[in-house]
């Protein structure tokens, strides 16, 4: 029934997923896995195919090609089982605005088959987690967007799913609500939940996610851990380091430049005298550069690998322009 033996460590496995709407190829051979009990970012520009992928995972869309497995269960053949394991929060607010917060959660808990006692328990828990206990008797239509987002998250949690699918959960939220939401998500990860979070802003997820998948024009451009993305480069032997010193001696740049394998030495900041040094790791080493700098009797404040800026990485991986059909 479920091949749990082989897939126990993955909350989500997507293999060869393709889907098109008429002539528009929304997804083209998408492959990636999400480890259990982690926060996985799913990033891509508008129209990349994020929502289509999420709908396929959430059993709302039947993939035309490929397989999607949630904790080993196929989303097509075992959709009922999958639905009990996932909690899906779409990018729009899926809310019955004329209900009170309590009624809304009670309704969904009942829809998932919980009895009265279980519902009382779980509603208390999710309200406490989302800090909405004091507003449980308010009508949803009277709540602010941030609060509605919390209620929406509480709704996703009522049946205690193992995998949370969140589609652009922070869009439209003010900075405070955004930070609070991220805190709740971290708490949920600590509770053992796997969180799959989609966004079109990579930097928003940088501090939160353990791993990330970048999707562009229906294709996976990168999947792996966050650090791998930041160091991801077409020429893997090319490495860049940052060196901060207190005072720059005369001929410092020329000396470093003369080391075999060093391609560029650029000053990037006036304060603290910060330099960016690019070199070929096969011809040179960081120890060699550091030793040379120390030979010049400089006071080294910091020497670390230069991780490319997130937006730069994102721009390198994705293509510019509007997607054609």
């Amino acid at each position, binding site marked *: 029934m479920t091949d749990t033996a082989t897939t126990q460590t993955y909350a989500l496995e997507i293999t060869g997923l393709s889907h098109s*709407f008429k002539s528009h190829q929304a997804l083209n051979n998408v492959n990636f896995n999400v480890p259990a009990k982690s926060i996985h970012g799913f990033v891509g520009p508008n129209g990349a195919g994020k929502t289509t992928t999420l*709908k396929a995972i*959430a*059993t*709302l*869309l*039947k993939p035309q090609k490929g397989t999607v497995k949630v904790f080993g269960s196929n989303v097509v053949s075992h959709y*009922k*089982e999958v*639905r*009990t394991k*996932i909690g*899906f929060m*779409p990018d*729009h*607010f*899926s*809310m*019955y*605005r*004329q*209900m*009170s917060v*309590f*009624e809304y959660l*009670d*309704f*969904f*808990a*009942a*829809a*998932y*088959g919980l009895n*009265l006692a279980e*519902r009382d328990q779980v509603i208390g828990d999710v309200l406490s987690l989302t800090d909405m206990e004091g507003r449980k*008797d*308010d*009508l949803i*239509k*009277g709540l602010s967007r941030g609060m509605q987002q919390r209620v929406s998250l509480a*709704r996703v949690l009522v049946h205690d799913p193992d995998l949370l699918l969140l589609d652009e959960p922070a869009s439209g939220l003010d900075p405070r609500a955004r930070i609070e939401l991220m805190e709740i998500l971290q708490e949920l990860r600590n509770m053992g939940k796997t969180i799959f979070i989609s966004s079109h802003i990579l930097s928003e997820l940088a501090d939160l996610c353990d791993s990330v998948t970048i999707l562009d024009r229906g294709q996976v451009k990168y999947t792996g851990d966050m650090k791998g993305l930041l160091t991801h480069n077409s020429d893997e032997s090319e490495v860049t380091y940052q060196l901060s010193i207190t005072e720059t001696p005369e001929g410092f740049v020329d000396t470093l430049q003369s080391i075999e394998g060093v391609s560029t030495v650029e000053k990037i900041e006036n304060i603290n005298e910060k330099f960016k040094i690019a070199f070929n790791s096969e011809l040179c080493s960081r120890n060699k550069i550091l030793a040379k700098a120390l030979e010049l009797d400089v006071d080294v404040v910091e020497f670390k690998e230069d991780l490319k800026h997130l937006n730069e990485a994102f721009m390198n991986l994705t293509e510019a322009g509007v997607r054609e059909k």
Partner: protein
Amino acid sequence: MNNNLALFKRAILVDSRQLTNYLTWLAAGILLFFFLITLGSFNTSGLGIKLLSMVAGVNLATIVLSGLVGFSSTITEEKEESTIGLLLMSGISPAALIFSKSMARVTRGLFLILSQLPFVFLAVTLGGVALNQVIALYLTLTSFTIFLAFYCTFFSVICKTTTRAAILAGVFAYLLTLLAMNVDFIGRMHPFHAYEAILNTGYSDYIFISQVVSNLVISLFFFMLSTCLFSKFALKEDGTSKTKKTSKAVIIRKRSWGAAIVWKDFKFYYGGYKMWAITLIIILGFVTFTFIDNSGMDFDDFRGVLVGTSVVAIAIQLTFFAQTFISKEFRDLTHSGIFITPKTLGEIFKEKIYAGLLMCLPSIAIFVLCIFPELDLNEEVFFIIPMAISYIALFLGATFFFSLKVKLIAFIIAGFCTTIISMILGFLVASTFNSSISGISIFISLINSLIAFTFIMAGINKVKSKLEA
């Protein structure tokens, strides 16, 4: 001035892109075409005036039906899109906003009337219709369209949503018609009265002055009233003042039933037990009113009125149910929450159908209790029942299907489809069966059920594609 013109132009452009307008034109055209076919059965002179009467009737019906829905969204659509503030910021005054948008709707209405001009020319050609009658008829329709536009705009200003505005406008229009039938002074303002005069052979005036002038004066009154009330109602924010009120309203916390979707739909879509009470009050109130009005009523009459009112109530409730069934979930963007609960599509539909039936329970109970003790199941009744049920199924199936495509007028389109199908079946039956009730019933029931099934399956496919989109 340029702003106002731009707004008028925008409204015309937006309206011209709406498929429903063209569907209404098509529907009116087809209906007239069918009337034209039946015209052949008249062997009298004055065919022209008969055709003109049909054109006038179709025009009035389409203006009232499409107007009550279309004109009622004049301001509410801006409220629903939160664009009123933006429009006012661009220097447009409330009066200009109301006038420009209402006149755009009037233009739309006039296009609808004018699209039937070929039939009018045919009526003139057939003879018995003078040019002044055509002019008088069109002036009546134009003034009535203007009246209806500003009348509906008034409700659009004071109501929050188009649905509420359309319902209120419809209820008051019904009451006004009742009043017009009983009070002569008001009756002279009604287009029916103008029709009676204009569509008589020998009518010589170019204008039915009392109706045209009164309609225009009342339009002006509604325009001024809407402008005065605009800032009080249309600019009201749905903000914090609401929260205080609502917390009182939910002191008694409602608990979901095990059949959660039945509970949700019954309580929040169909009004719950309050709707039961309202239905009973309306049915019993109407019966009491009839009883007071006709003191000589016996028990059978009393039961007859109960059956009649409960049938009307069931019809309204079932129509509302079919129109709301799934489309509301998509309109409110709540569908993804429902469809990822561990239930099949069939289970979700089943619960939704139960909720609809639960809404109709009081009226169904009254109908059953009144009709069964005296039900004479003779051959005619035995065969008419399945035929009637098949028509109801066809109408409800079509309403369900069209509700996934258009917002408010699904039931009107469905009603039109049902009428056309019944007309076609009528022609077929008349030429195929020799008044055998059993044959007619089986034939019509089968065909209707087949078409209803097709509508339902097409609706289900539409639901699936909407979920994926």
